């Protein structure tokens, strides 16, 4: 999350400050450098083009190992995908269907209201196949991870190949500046030109990292655009209403003073 947790308000209430979540399993090294994001701050809005590019990166790269199981294909209407595009995308994914007449497992094409296909049949299977640790689900990753977007971007662009000379070399582990102990089992996911963006944006590692980070933040807070838009109108309305209410109250209370 790029939004700062305003501890000042809690203090103003005379009460305690909230913690930066320290979630088991997610390390918190030093603060990653701050990036400028269109979606940060109280008026921030997601850039739909970036969201769509980011989904491409997620779909082609991340989703081979990471699930995002609380989202449905229909939710992608929120990043500006058309109904037809969502339908085609869903139909291209195969899910486990009901057993057939002889009890054999079957496969079926996904429907728009199906949840995203998980890359592994279960967390246990994922852990077994991925060297003991299941890749975390990405539905709310950007909100759970301390420093959210900034950390995701720093992490995705933080692999060093070859690793620094003084770094320990462990087979099957990769060097990254932004994880605890600098070693991680996840190989560098992004490479220059690994995908081609249909809108012609050069698919550099940095660009892909920016786009997929934007998509992950959207996935963890899909209604942010509407929330900020509705919020702005609500606040403006309440301010106008407050002005009227204060005027009315003053008019009424004048009688008391005149008494």
């Amino acid at each position, binding site marked *: 999350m790029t939004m700062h947790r305003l501890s000042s308000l809690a203090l103003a209430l*005379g009460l*305690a400050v909230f913690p930066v979540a320290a979630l088991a399993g997610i390390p918190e090294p030093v603060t990653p450098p701050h990036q400028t994001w269109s979606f940060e701050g109280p008026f921030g809005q997601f850039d739909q083009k970036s969201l769509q590019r980011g989904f491409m990166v997620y779909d082609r790269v991340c989703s081979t190992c990471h699930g995002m199981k609380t989202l449905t294909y229909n939710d992608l209407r929120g990043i500006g995908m058309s109904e037809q595009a969502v339908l085609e995308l869903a139909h291209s994914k195969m899910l486990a269907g009901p057993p057939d007449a002889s009890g054999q497992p079957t496969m079926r094409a996904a429907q728009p209201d199906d949840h995203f296909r998980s890359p592994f049949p279960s967390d246990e299977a994922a852990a077994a196949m991925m060297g003991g640790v299941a890749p975390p689900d990405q539905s709310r990753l950007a909100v759970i991870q301390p420093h959210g977007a900034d950390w995701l971007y720093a992490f995705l662009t933080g692999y060093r190949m070859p690793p620094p000379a003084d770094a320990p070399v462990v087979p099957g582990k990769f060097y990254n500046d932004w994880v605890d102990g600098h070693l991680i089992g996840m190989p560098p996911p992004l490479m220059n030109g690994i995908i081609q963006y249909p809108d012609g944006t050069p698919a550099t590692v940095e660009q892909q990292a920016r786009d997929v980070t934007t998509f992950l933040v959207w996935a963890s807070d899909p209604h942010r655009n509407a929330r900020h838009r509705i919020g702005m109108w609500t606040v403006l309305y309440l301010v106008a209403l407050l002005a009227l209410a204060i005027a009315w109250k003053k008019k009424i209370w004048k009688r*008391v003073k005149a008494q």
Partner: protein
Amino acid sequence: MTTPENMGNHSADAAETEGLAAWIDRRLPVVSAFRSEYVDFRLPRNLNWLWNFGAILTAVLLLMLATGIFLAMNYTPTNAGAFLSVEAIDRQLSGGWLLRAMHMTGANLFLAALYIHLFRGLYYGSYKAPREILWLTGLLLLVMVMATAFAGYMLPWGQMSYWGADVITKAVGAVPLIGTALEHVMTGSDHLGDVFLHRFFVLHFLMAFLVVAVVGLHVVAIHVSGSNNPLGIEPKTKKDTLTFHPYYTTKDLVGLIIFALIFSLLMFFWPNLLAEPSNYTPADPMHTPADIEPEWYFLPFYGLLQSVPSKFGGLVAAAGSIAVLFFLPWLDRSPIRSARFRPVCRAGLFGLVIAFVLLALGGKHHAEGVWMLIARLAGLYYFGYFLVLLPLASRREKTRPLPASISAAQGDA
């Protein structure tokens, strides 16, 4: 109000009118009762902005019920389904994110408003005769709202829900003799799962409506005893009072809109200020989070719980910190209500607020290191204020002189 001027002159008005309203009113006096209790009802003329919180709390309670009913329609109280059903409310249910945001922000601001309301009662001595029942029903509401909030926080069944429930059920299990049985009654089985969730879902829903019933008693009590006021002296003549409408309806409206503004700013722009991110990780009995901590509104009690070396002792301290408030009308025997005229009590009360905040900070830091000492001192002060300072001050304190009447104090006499 018990002032003789305003008694028995409104039912006559309603009886004179013809038509359906009058017909109903002769059989069930809802029209005239509303008129006498919410239109012509007389309140002290000097109520300040702290008296807005009664109306604010009523509004938040109604909002919680309205949003809660629709959330309940889409919630699944099972170990496997709870987290996912809340995610589905947030993501796929049309307008669900807004319902849930209102309910979450509402819960936080409900407790915040309740603490301010309680502080106002302490500061202006609203617990003293003839308002003891008003005070006791209010405290009962505090306890019920806290229980409802705790049960509600379990429902999303994230990591903090699960491990919060774990801490509390184990604390209950530390009660001598009956602890194990009590813990089992709470959890319903050997582990926190389907039975526990289902039970707390029903309790959360049930408690919300019991709160409405007790609010009814609380409101009846205030309409019998009348509102206290910043001077803490009873209105003597009509000049000391104003009618509820239009004076306090317009004042409450301003207070409600300001509150709605704060509510909206938090809900729309800074939602993460009030939400614990790790509760967006599904409950996992195999992974204890590094930092288990309750919502901010429970932190002072969590501080007491942790600053006492014995688990049961901590539980007694935390429960006792609320229980002592029930005895307040009989601990503080001073005839002067408002702290404005009680210099010792006033200073002591600000100390109490500081102790409450320090306890919260102690709870946040798990009463580790220096926080253990701070939390213990703050806890001692908290109990010392009620059990030693207040009873002594009511006898020895040199109070400031009270004004002759409310209107005299405002210079209108």
